[in-house]
């Protein structure tokens, strides 16, 4: 898994609530058997006209944000399906953190397993960040996962919560399977006891 410690970037504003995983990547892109190439499908129906040309008014087509890595999205980001293709597509495009007031459970779990940081902020901060993207679209914020802090252009900081276990995995760039495997003996004895009781 991609390691995550700090990140400095502009915020890509996508001010819609309840952005579902079918928007992040439509099901017709799920016929792949590996994780690569999904960036092409990211927000594809919002990003491209029917003839395949880029929609000029869609934020990911704005030259300003081609190198940006932080998506600023509306409430309840990532609702809907369990497809891990959603974080794969975001990461494939270059998104490394998503800032919102809330995330759907499965999306959040999937994101954290792919080096994609969900940053939860309160409504007031959320609105001020959208204001910032209008007033100073080139301004950058700095995310420090170790400190669980986001520094805004004016120097002020905002704390954000991260599950301690997921945080240590992200900082080290290790996935969670090794941790489960370390309990192999426990799993075996659990299975044996369950077999006795049926």
């Amino acid at each position, binding site marked *: 898994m991609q390691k995550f410690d700090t990140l400095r970037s502009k915020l890509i504003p996508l001010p819609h*609530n309840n952005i579902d995983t079918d928007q992040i990547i439509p099901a017709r892109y799920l016929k792949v*058997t590996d994780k690569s190439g999904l960036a092409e499908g990211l927000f594809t129906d919002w990003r491209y006209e029917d003839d395949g040309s880029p929609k000029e008014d869609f934020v990911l087509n704005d030259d300003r944000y081609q190198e940006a890595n932080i998506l600023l999205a509306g409430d309840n980001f990532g609702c*809907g399906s369990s497809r*891990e293709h959603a974080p794969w597509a975001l990461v494939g495009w270059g998104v490394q953190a998503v800032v919102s007031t809330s995330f759907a459970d*499965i999306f959040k779990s999937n994101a954290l397993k792919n080096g994609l940081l969900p940053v939860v902020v309160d409504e007031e901060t959320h609105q001020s960040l959208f204001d910032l993207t209008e007033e100073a679209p080139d301004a950058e914020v700095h995310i420090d996962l170790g400190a669980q802090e986001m520094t805004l252009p004016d120097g002020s900081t905002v704390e954000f919560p991260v*599950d301690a276990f997921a945080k240590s995995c992200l900082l080290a760039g290790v996935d969670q399977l090794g941790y489960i495997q370390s309990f*192999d003996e426990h*799993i075996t004895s659990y299975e044996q006891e369950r077999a006795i009781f049926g």
Partner: protein
Amino acid sequence: MTQARTLFEKVWDQHVIVQEKASPAVLYIDLHLIHEVTSPQAFTGLRQRGLKVRRPDRTVATMDHSTPTTPLSVPMLDTQAASQLSMLEENCQEFGIELHKLGSKKQGIVHVIGPEMGLVQPGMTIVCGDSHTATHGAFGTLAFGIGTSEVEHVLATQSLLQHKPKTYEVRIDGQLARGVSAKDIILALLSKIGVHGGTGHVFEYTGSAIRGLSMEERMTVCNMSIEGGARAGMVAPDETTYEYLAGREFAPQGDEWDQAVARWKDLPTDEGATYDNSVTLDTSDLAPMITYGTNPGLGMQVTERIPDPDKLPNVNERQALEKALNYMALKPGQPLLDHPVDVVFIGSCTNSRISDLRLAAGLIKDRKVAEGVRMLVVPGSQSVKRQAEAEGLDEVFKNAGAEWREAGCSMCIAMNGDQLEPGQYAVSTSNRNFEGRQGKGGRTFLASPLTAAATAINGRITDARSMLQ
């Protein structure tokens, strides 16, 4: 005296193998269902690490999402989907997993075949790389959708890391009026709590209305828990559950059955147990529901008018509704009754079981699908299909002018050839009305099988109660 616990807490406690401080629990998984779309990368991961599937005997595979619903004799033109299917077959062969592939007798939608084979039993933990795994909670199981990384974890260890979710009682009391069904209950709940009312929680559906539902109806309700943000939704097992399970292929038999039932009877929530959150719904005045927007929480009674965004207090909600109505090409204040539709879809893991098909066929019998309307009826499994054909339901649908298909996810997910054209309107018994969900540019109204059938006949959105004798 032990502390009073909820159904969820009992199942959770029974499956925690290890709980270290400040870490998620290591949770044992009793049954792992897999399908072709969310498993290939997990098997690749296993191979890269040189791992085996720990419990192939607790893993069951089917093909459903990217499969065409045309007969097997029709060549499969989508080479990408075909390669995904053959990869599942190779993976199952190599790792020793039972696969119900296309053309086999037990193939079908993963959330339809698990219960019908009796694999799903009260008190179990069940996962699948699909968010509608919540369906199986109807049996008093803890069942939830997982991502592909987690599919790999479960394949390798039969365990999963999970933080304990909060509990949420969804109490649904009252009688159901004629023409009103389980689908209307869940759509009404979603319109009340919204699409993230249940985030971080596991629903437990309680109350007299839930007790009165059949297992198939309970599955319809639990199926859409995820549309309210809850990863799982559960119903405590009772006589209805045992009656459904008894005699099914993988259900315990003889003495083992009696012992199992005795264990299952300990599962219901103890008196005095408390939930972190709760909501109540009375079904007595419930009418058929339909969605008008682009998430399942944007629903109303079929006789109501579309709400006006300007009357919403919250600016975000106002903008969201405006965007949804813009996509749907609908106006505030407009009724949906008599709105023309192009397609009617009866199917999906929400409403493709035999009772759903019986309801729809009962209304369609001796009637015709309106001219210009395409009606697609897709049974949830080969077993449902055979049963329907034995009852002559296929003839009812075909005589009316509907298409009778092979089992699969079909137009619910539009990755298999069954899809809407841009701009088309559909009444669909599936679970998601997201933009483009049923095909790019397609517009979905979610509703019950009865509403769908009535709409197919009139070619316009119809209150099915007006057509019931």
